[in-house]
């Protein structure tokens, strides 16, 4: 599996403002890669740079083997983009919208017709194909915009906030469609989002950005390790336990978070140490009611990383 995007020490300035600073990452063919970060972190600017819409002021980019500064057109021809707003021509029908973008992508009439039919079916819009896009609900518009992004069978798809502004039901539907279609078509996807739940569900790897540079990058387990080196076990006890502090002495325990005399969270080195922890607890006389391994949600990882970085910028942690 090769790299479809390679970015090294990327720089970009808007006037005097340094929008992107020393950004480096790569995206493997077939993976779903997430760019996370608050508003203004530089996610959309990165996508624009990758598509040759802006010129980088430093560093290098390669997208599908092309340099966006020289061959932006070729990249745009072979990739699909979903912008933050659906950006549909509301006075045109769904079919006319697809036809317009198909011709601009260099597809012939037959290809456009066949592919439009296929996508409208796939995104459940066939029954409204000849209605104006302006009459569609937000969810339908987003589905049409996704059909447009997928029109050319792109090898690479850029999705900028794909579920922004949608109600939970429509957002879930769009997420499901992205996962399904991506699997069917084998598309590499780069998603910009600040919806952490979405990123956790869809992305194979994540890049967390802050102020135009990399804060952290990796798979979710790798990112979890950055904020917490071990894994957490939530333990519920049958009766109050007085020797909570002694749990620290069990081999493999890294830290403790005592909630009450019957409830405690234990950070352990790895999954392999769980039997050892259970024996230790039993040896201390604890009556275990329930023990559940817990994974730190991406939201907690993200907030902690952003927070650590913020403290760092303001003179370090207390």
């Amino acid at each position, binding site marked *: 599996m090769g790299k479809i995007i390679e970015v090294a020490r990327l720089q970009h300035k*808007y006037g005097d403002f340094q929008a992107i600073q020393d950004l480096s990452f790569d995206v493997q063919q077939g993976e779903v890669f997430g760019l996370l970060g608050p508003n203004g972190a530089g996610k959309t600017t990165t996508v*624009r740079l990758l*598509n*040759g*819409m*802006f*010129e980088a002021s430093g560093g290098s980019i390669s997208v599908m083997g092309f340099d966006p500064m020289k061959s*932006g*057109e*070729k990249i*745009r*021809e072979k990739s699909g*983009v979903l*912008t933050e*707003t659906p*950006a*549909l*021509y*509301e*006075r*045109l029908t769904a079919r*006319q919208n697809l*036809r*317009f*973008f198909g*011709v*601009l*992508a*260099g597809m012939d009439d037959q290809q456009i017709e066949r592919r439009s039919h296929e996508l409208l079916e796939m995104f459940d819009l066939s029954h409204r194909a000849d209605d104006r896009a302006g009459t569609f609900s937000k969810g339908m518009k987003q589905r049409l*915009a996704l059909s*447009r992004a997928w029109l050319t069978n792109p090898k690479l798809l850029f999705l900028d906030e794909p579920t922004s502004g949608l109600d939970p039901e429509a957002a879930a539907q769009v997420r499901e469609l992205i996962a399904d279609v991506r699997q069917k078509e084998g598309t590499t996807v780069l998603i910009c989002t600040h919806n952490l739940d979405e990123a956790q569900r869809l992305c194979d790897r994540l890049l967390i950005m802050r102020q135009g540079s990399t804060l952290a990058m990796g798979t979710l387990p790798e990112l979890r390790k950055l904020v917490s080196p071990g894994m957490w076990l939530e333990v519920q006890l049958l009766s109050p336990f007085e020797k909570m502090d002694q749990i620290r002495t069990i081999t493999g325990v890294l830290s403790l978070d005592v909630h009450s005399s019957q409830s405690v969270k234990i950070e352990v080195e790895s999954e392999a140490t769980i039997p050892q922890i259970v024996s230790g607890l039993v040896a201390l006389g604890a009556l275990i009611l329930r023990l559940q391994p817990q994974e730190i949600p991406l939201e907690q990882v993200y907030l902690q990383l952003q927070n650590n970085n913020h403290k760092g910028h303001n003179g370090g942690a207390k």
Partner: protein
Amino acid sequence: MNWRKIRIIAWKDILEVRQNKSVLISMVMVPLIIMVVLPAVMLVVVNTTGSADALNDPDIQMMFERIPPSIAQMLGDLNDAQLSVAMILGFLFAPMFLIMPLMLSSSIAAESFAGERERKTLEALLYTAATDTELFIGKALAAFVPAVLVSLVSFIIYTVVLNVGGYPIFGYVWFPLDTWYPLVFWVMPAFSALGVGATVLISAKVQTFMGAYQASGSLVILVLGLVVGQASGLIYLSVWVGLVLGFVVWLAAGVLFFMAIQQFNRKTLLYQSAH
């Protein structure tokens, strides 16, 4: 350059324009009033009264006094009623005809360039594989071609109205006068191009269709200048004046287009829509 892409950009813009009521109304009402209603009223008045009172108007008198010999020769054999119709509808009205290409081209260009940003569709368009030049030409043609076509059709209708309505006065097909040919086939397209070029430049500075349309509406001053120029006898739209005027307007349109193309690139357009 890919002409299929250019055609689809123009097709899309024209399709959108057809559904924008404010543009559509101006495309129908302006030609209707200038090219049908006003001349028809004038012809009905002259037909029913047989009067040539208009010739006593001081403005018309001033035009007569300063009329160039070539035009005097053209009008030499006409009686007073014929003369009043020919002077007003054949000469004084000529610059009014130029309002149409200006208004139509600038309203469509405003819809096409500023409207795209207003409706937040610009970014998706810029993410396509069309080059900056293809996008610019497609959009410029979407404004230029309908403006020229509607103006040509209006000219044909005006010709019919003047000859049918003027038949009782003239007794023969008297219009178009020779001075109209350079006006219609040389100056009118130049004015259409001028309207497009100016509106594209203005669209870069304003965020809405109406803003761009209203700002480019100030170009009508050029036409009013011609009306006043003719009425005061300062300038006559003779064949030669038409040819020179067309050349100057084409030149101005060329400069505006050059400036517009310079700023019509993805980077500038994205910065403009972000700020």
